[in-house]
Structure formats: structure tokens, C-alpha cells
């Protein structure tokens, strides 16, 4: 049994996060009721340390734990994204939890466990690791979604998420078992090797691919499997919704990409058509249904679904530019959505639920900076130039046109225009409607920091994304 130090070194960030999570769980019962804030800073410290650890190993490229776990620039790229998302979520949730009177210490432990699951998932080069990471993430999210346990909406959201989530894990698992049966191994490299040898005509491969697409499709809320998304986004506490819509989606896309590009690259033709179909319905449904939404969180849910559709285009293209455009899309989508949800947490005031779009009325008068930030996020989500959203969409459509999927790019572009309406409606409500009461909305410093960082990032990536593009390029997955 070989067990060298490099194995521990490679898995250090994950170990760090898991140890911190257990530490939080241990300290929490001994802590007096009002000192729960320390655990939040504890969590932030953990994420900071892990960030530094991953930063050191940024360009390492080695497979450890005999083929189960891989440490490569692609995985590290997504890990950095996940750290930023988690740090922002914790900052958003500190004030939010106290206001909602659900400030239990375990919340931060679950956030750390969720991100630990995502990190394992993202750097798993074996279907076992991928499945375990996926499950750890999903289970922690089932709890986090139902965290406001005395509010019916949150309970209902977590019940729906649980049932549909475990149902899709069952399907995914059955897909993995078929894949194992066909290729004799669960290691992604070995599956690819085997695929080069065997004839891909065997229909069982197509069945296994369909089941895998169903399982991952659920996690990224692609349309036929998106039923859970709006209800869960609306019911769950807002910071959890933010983390769910950003972290879980980015990690699921990373795994989707790794499994399909590395392992099933050989039968690209079969699953490309399936993904094209998926991405078309997702874009259409996501943009159209969002038009009629009145609840901001449901609207952001459908906008998230539409964005998954666009990101899927990057995935199905299947060449270096496709991977690069998907990797570019995820962080930009993450920053935009986190910022938008940050502003939604701001509106949670006393009686005001802060969910309906009309609660945004006259925000420009109540809190000018928050309104400006939301304007930037909405324009970025709509993909209007000076913001990063435009760059992300531009590269995705470029990737599609490059492989002569011009009609797909045209469809995507048209529905971007359609989606512009409901994003601008929020801006209109904020700037052009009068607020019902003139109270000045004070924003806690943590939320202000998150909004400022997100807004600056969106503008910076929009105007001069040079260095970020080069980094994403070098970190792109190397297809054998």
C-alpha cells in the first residue's frame, strides 16, 4: 500500500476544510448562544487558508491516491472560484442569519462541508470520487435549503429538493454502474482508453450516457430536470440560494465537463446531439418563463436556468475553445448572481419579505449604491457590453460558430435579447418607481463589501479581461 507525502499534500485543501468543519461542529455546543459570530470568522479563516494552499499548488498536475484524485490547473481553477463563492456567501449570511433568528453555528459547518464536497467532486478523476463528492454536496445542501425550519416555504423547498435530488442521484448511479459494466473500470482515463478500443456502436453506451446526462442535467438545472430550481431558490434562505445557484452549478459543470470530455470523448457524436437538444430547450424555457415572474428569486432561478443553457453550448462544442468559453462563463456567472442575491438579502427588512420585484421599488432613492450595484448586475446578466456578461456570452457564441453551429448561436443571441426585458424590468422598478417609504436602507458592512467586490469584478472583467482570459486559457482541460 503506497502512501506518500505527496498524496496528503495534494489533498491538503480538502483535508483542511473538513478538519475545520469538524472543529466547528465540536466547538458549537460549547459556545454560549450569542457568540456564534466567531464560527463565521472561523469558517472564513478556513477558506482563506485553503485558498492559499490551492494557490501554491496552482499549476501542479499529478494524479494521487492511485488514480482516484487528480490535482490539475482545471480543478484548481474551479476551486478558487468555489472559495470566492463560499467566502461571499458567509459574508452575506452573517447579518442575514441574525435577522432571521436562525443563527445556528452548524450553518457555517455545513457551508464548509458543502464546499469540501464540491472540491472533491471537481478534482475527482474516478467515478467513485465524483459520486461521493456529488452526494456530500447534495446532502449538505438538502439541510441548508431547509435551514429556516419553522417557515413552511423553506421546509417545502428542502422536501422537493431532497426527493428530486436523491431521485436524480439514483439515476446517475445506475448510469455509472452501466458505464462500469461496459468499460470494466470507473477511472475516467481507463474508460477513455477502453472506448478507443471497443466499438462505440453498442446501444448500452448510449443508455449509460443518457442516464449520466440526466443525473448531471438535474444538478445544473437543465430544463427537463429543472422543476426543483424555482421552488428551491425561492424557499431557501437567500445566502443559501446564492451559494446553491453559484457553487453547486459551477462544480456540476466542471464534473460534467471532465466526465464527458475526458472519459466519453470517444463517442462525442452521440452525446453532442443530446446536449444540443438540452441546451436549446433550457435557453428557450429559462428566458421565456422568466418574463412573467414577479418574485425576484424565482426570476433569478429561471435566469440561472437560461444561463445553464448558454454554458451547455460551451460544453457540447467539445474543443479547446468550447472548454475555455465554459470555464470563462462560470466565474462571470458566479460573480453576477452572487451580487444580485447580495442585493436581495439587503432588502430583507422587518416585515418586508424582499422577494417580490415590487419590493425593489425606488431602491435608487433608498440606497443609491445598492441600486447602482444591482443595475450593473442586471445589465451584466442581460449581456450588455461594458459588463462581463457580454464577454462571457460572446465567447460562448464564438465557440458555437467556430464548429459551424451557427444556428445555435443565433438562437442563443435571440433569447439573450428576449431576456433583456425582464432584467431591465428590475432596473426600471428600481430607478423609475417611487419608494413607498423614504427610509434609508442601511447595508451592513459585510454585504457592502461583497457588493462592491462583485460590481468591480463584473466591470473589470467586462472592460479588460486580458489577464483573466490568459489564466483561464492555460488552466483549460487538456484533452488527450
Amino acid at each position, binding site marked *: 500500500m503506497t502512501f506518500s507525502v505527496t498524496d496528503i499534500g495534494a489533498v491538503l485543501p480538502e483535508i483542511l476544510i473538513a478538519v475545520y468543519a469538524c472543529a466547528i461542529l465540536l466547538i458549537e455546543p460549547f459556545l454560549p448562544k450569542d457568540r456564534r459570530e466567531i464560527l463565521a470568522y472561523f469558517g472564513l479563516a478556513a477558506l482563506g487558508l485553503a485558498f492559499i494552499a490551492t494557490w501554491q499548488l496552482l499549476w501542479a498536475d499529478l494524479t494521487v491516491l492511485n488514480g482516484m484524485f487528480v490535482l490539475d490547473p482545471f480543478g484548481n481553477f474551479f476551486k478558487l472560484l468555489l472559495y470566492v463563492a463560499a467566502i461571499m456567501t458567509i459574508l452575506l449570511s452573517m447579518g442575514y442569519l441574525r435577522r432571521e433568528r436562525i443563527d445556528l453555528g452548524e450553518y457555517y459547518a455545513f457551508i464548509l462541508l458543502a464546499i469540501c464536497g464540491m472540491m472533491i467532486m471537481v478534482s475527482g478523476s474516478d467515478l467513485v470520487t465524483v459520486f461521493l463528492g456529488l452526494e456530500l454536496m447534495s446532502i449538505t445542501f438538502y439541510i441548508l435549503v431547509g435551514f429556516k425550519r419553522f417557515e413552511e416555504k423553506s421546509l417545502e423547498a428542502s422536501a422537493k429538493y431532497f426527493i428530486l435530488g436523491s431521485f436524480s442521484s439514483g439515476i446517475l448511479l445506475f448510469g455509472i454502474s452501466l458505464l462500469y459494466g461496459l468499460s470494466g473500470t470507473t477511472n475516467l482515463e481507463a474508460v477513455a482508453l477502453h472506448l478507443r478500443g471497443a466499438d462505440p456502436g453498442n446501444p448500452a453506451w448510449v443508455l449509460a450516457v443518457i442516464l449520466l446526462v440526466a443525473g448531471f442535467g438535474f444538478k445544473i438545472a437543465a430544463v427537463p430536470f429543472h422543476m426543483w430550481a424555482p421552488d428551491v431558490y425561492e424557499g431557501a434562505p437567500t445566502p443559501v440560494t446564492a451559494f446553491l445557484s453559484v457553487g453547486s452549478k459551477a462544480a456540476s459543470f466542471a464534473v460534467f465537463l471532465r466526465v464527458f470530455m475526458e472519459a466519453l470523448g470517444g463517442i462525442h457524436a452521440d452525446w453532442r446531439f443530446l446536449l444540443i437538444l438540452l441546451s436549446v430547450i433550457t435557453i428557450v424555457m429559462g428566458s421565456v418563463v422568466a418574463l412573467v415572474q414577479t418574485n425576484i428569486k424565482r426570476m433569478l432561478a429561471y435566469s440561472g436556468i437560461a444561463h445553464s443553457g448558454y454554458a451547455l453550448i460551451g460544453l457540447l462544442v467539445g474543443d479547446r*475553445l468550447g472548454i*475555455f468559453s465554459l470555464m470563462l462563463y462560470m466565474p462571470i456567472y458566479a460573480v453576477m448572481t452572487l451580487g444580485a442575491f447580495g442585493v436581495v438579502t439587503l432588502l430583507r427588512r422587518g416585515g418586508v419579505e424582499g422577494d417580490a420585484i415590487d419590493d425593489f421599488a425606488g431602491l*435608487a432613492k433608498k440606497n443609491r449604491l445598492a441600486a447602482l450595484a444591482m*443595475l450593473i448586475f442586471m*445589465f451584466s446578466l442581460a449581456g*450588455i*457590453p*461594458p459588463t462581463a456578461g*457580454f464577454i462571457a456570452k*460572446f*465567447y460562448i*457564441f*464564438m465557440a458555437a*460558430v*467556430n464548429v*459551424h453551429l*451557427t444556428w445555435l*448561436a*443565433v438562437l442563443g*443571441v*435571440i433569447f*439573450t*435579447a428576449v431576456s*433583456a*426585458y425582464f432584467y*431591465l424590468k428590475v*432596473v*426600471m422598478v428600481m*430607478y*423609475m418607481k417611487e419608494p413607498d417609504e423614504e427610509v434609508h436602507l442601511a447595508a451592513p458592512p459585510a454585504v457592502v463589501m461583497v457588493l462592491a467586490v462583485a460590481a468591480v469584478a463584473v466591470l473589470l472583467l467586462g472592460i*479588460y*479581461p*486580458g489577464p483573466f*482570459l*490568459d489564466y483561464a*486559457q492555460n488552466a483549460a482541460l487538456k484533452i488527450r
Partner: protein
Amino acid sequence: MMDHILSTILFAPFVGVVVLLFIPNARPLAVRTTASIAGLIPTLASFYLLYHYDSAAGGYQFTEQYVWSKELGISFFLGVDGISIPLALASSILLFTGVFISWHIEDRPKEFYIFLLILAAATIGVYVSLDLFFLYFFYEMSVLPMYVLLGVWGSHTKGYLEMADKEKRDSVGFIFNFASNSKEYAAMKLTLFLSAGAIVALIAILIIYATSGLHTFNLVELQAHGRVPQYLHGILFLLIFFGFASIAPIWPLHSWSPVGHAAAPAAVSMLHAGVLMKLGHFSIIRVGYTLFPDATREWMPLAAVLCVFSIVYGGLVAYFQRDTKYVIGYSSSSHMGYVFLGMAALNVISMTGAVLYMFAHALATGMLFAIAGYVYDQTHTRDIPSLGGLSSKMPFIAGIFVVAVAASFGLPLTVNFIGELMILVGSWSIYPVQTIIAVLGIGLTLAYLFRMMRGVFYGPMDPHYAHAQDASPFVDRLPLLVMAATSIYFGLFPTQFIHVIRAGVMPLIAAIQGAGPIPPVGGPF
């Protein structure tokens, strides 16, 4: 400094925006002076550009290039030629004067100026960039400030205020859930129309990039050795034409523009009519004419037909409007018809006339909107029948209005006359019937502008507006004087202007002529 002049023109407004961010709304004078300086720098620089462009050498000068993304071959490539200098000058003048026109805005002046500067900078960006990606980047970027400016500082149209119950939902109101003549509706309609048009153009740009086999957006390289397959040229030109023509309102796609004019505040409708509309013509020339000369020669007669509709339609509707800003809005969409006619004739005289007319029309409509805005500020109504006899109250404004009207229909002393003349002379030999209709169109312009002038400034004065005073402070007089002076100055000494534009137009027409003489248009049109 001279080789960075284009970036100074482009980034001066952006620097102004950043400086404005740090000035509180409580000190409006500081806000306004920063905005005016941010407007002054590009104006002076463009004047310098005009007089230092070496028209003998021609081609793209003052070029700057910075690589932006190696992977996709996108570079921040600035350069001007004969066609873009006049338009850059027009947009900087309109920005400078627009800042002074909106001197009396009280509702959040800082944000207003920030979005105004972004709008002007975006239009200048389109005129000076030689990279398809950045041309589209700035073109789409102009949508953002237009939406917010119209929505927040705009004014409702068509008697919206008198409407009994604001929630009156007609079909349009139901879909957009706000009344169909409110400013939000105008803002939303404008934005959706612009982005829809831009989308069509984006598709063409993406296909050009993919099929040119060069993996670059650089316009100069694409023009030199882009190998876009022949059968695609026709479709791509049509995509570009209709994509960009929706902003230069050609007849079927023009319905958003008058509403946009009427709902916008004075300075924004000046920039909108003066410069935003010309983005369309300019981009068609910059992308369509340069990359697909033969397709241009084949399809431009279509534009000649459509532009006649927009001249006649715009003129007639303008005649029957009751709202001053609607009259000017429809008049500018009808004048755009002349520019299309000039562009469609595809010879040096008419093209030079078209570009000159674009510059001239910017100044003329700028003055008209400034004055309409001023009248609205004084009397809080734009309804022509209820206005009247204001010339006794504001002689200076009435005087400038006469100059503006003269410029609009091309009285000889103004630069519009030269532009219009060259268009008509140039297109006479190719499209005789259209030219006749265009000349009649000038008569129509004369009719509705004089009708408006009589309605607003002369005749019996309604005592209700007794309190209206003239534009006495220097700050109100400066912009109108600047525009009138430039219009007349270039009307008297246009030589340098014509040389510069000719230098830009010659290579284009040569390429298009090279693709064989224009087939004589059969039948009446």
C-alpha cells in the same frame, strides 16, 4: 501626445465619469464643470484631427493598436479616416453642448452626466474603432445609458399626464404592464429595438469571423485578405444592412425612434438624433461597404427605394404632429432618408454629400431639440396649438430657432445646403425618380418646420405663459451659439471638410466601382 489623440478623445468622457463618481450631488456646479471639461477635450481634439488629417495620403490615420486577446485575435485598434472624423467631431460637439443644455437638471445631476458621458463616449468609440469586436462592443454599449436616461430623466408623452387612470391597460400596456405612452414604455421599446437590431448585426460579425479563415476581428486585415466565401456575401451584407439600419431608422424599422426622441430629455434627444442615428449609416459603410463591395453594389438599390418611403412618410407624419419633439423626431427620421439616398447612389459626390449631411444634420437637429427642450422647461408643455407668440418673450431663442429651421431644410448659408446639394446632384444620374421625390421632400420639411415655428413663436400669446423668460444667462446661450456658429462656419468654408471626406470615400467607391459599373435601375425606381 499626437499619436495618442484618438485614445484621448475616446477616454476623456470615461475619465470624466470616474471623476464624477467622487463628486457628491450636493455640489452641482462642480459636477457640471467636470462634465463640460470632459466634453470640451474631445471637441478640441476632433477639431485638431479635422485640420491635421492628411487628405492626400487618405486611408486610416492616427492609428493605435493594443492586443486585447491573443486567442481570438481581438485587438483594441483605433483609427480614423475621412468618414469617421466628421462624425466624431459631431458627437463631441453635441456632447459639449448637451452638457450646457441640461444645466438646469435638479434630479440627481451627477448620475445624469455620468450616463450622458458614457453615451457620447460609446458613440465616439464606434466611430474610431477599426476592430469589429470593439465596433460592436461600443455600438451595444450605447444602449445602456439610453435606457436609464430615458427612463429616469425622460418625460411622458402624448398627454400621459392627463390620462385619467394611469393603469389604463391597452394591449401594449398589458404586455409591458405600464401605460403605452409612458416614458418607461419608450425606454423599453427603444432598448429592445436597438438590441434586436444589434443582435442581427452580431450574427453577421460572428459568421464573418468564422468563415474568413483569418481568426481576427481586425477590419483592415479582413478587408485586405479575408476569404469569406462568395455565396455568403449577399446574405451577410443584408444582415449587416438591416441590423444596423434599425438604428438609422429606415422606413419599416423606424417606429421606435420618434417615441424615443419625444420621451428623452433635451440633451439626450440631441445626442440620439444627432449621433446615435448615424451609428447605423456609419457601421453599414464601415462594415458593409468595406468588406463586401460587390454585394453593396448589388443590394444598395433596395436602400434607395426604402429611403424614399422614409422621406415621404417622415415628412407627412411630422406635418400632422401636435408635440414639438415628435415633429423634430419624425423630421430627423425623414432626413435620414436623404443620407441613405446619398449612400445608395454609390458615387464620390453623393457619398461625400451623405457624410457631410450627416454632420450637418447633427448640428441642425441638435439646435432644434435644444430649443424644444428650452421651451418645454419654460412652459412645461410641448403642445404646439396651445403654445404661441413666445418670440416676444424670448427673442434670442426665436432667432436661433430661425437659424435652426434654415439649417434643417438646407438654406445655402449652412453646411446642410452643401451636403444636400451634393447628395441630390450625385444621385440624380442614377436614381432620377428618387431625387425628384427627395427635392419635393425638402418642400415638405419647409412646410412642417414653418408650421411649428408659427405655432410656437408667433401668433397670439396665451397669457398662461407670460412668466417665460429668454435664455439670458451665458450658460444657456453658449451651446446654441456654438452650434449655429459651426453650422454657418462650415457652410462658408467647407473645403477642408470636403477634402477630408473625399479622401475617405474615394477608396471605398473605387472598390465598389471596381466591381463593375452600377447596373442602371430599370423601371420607375
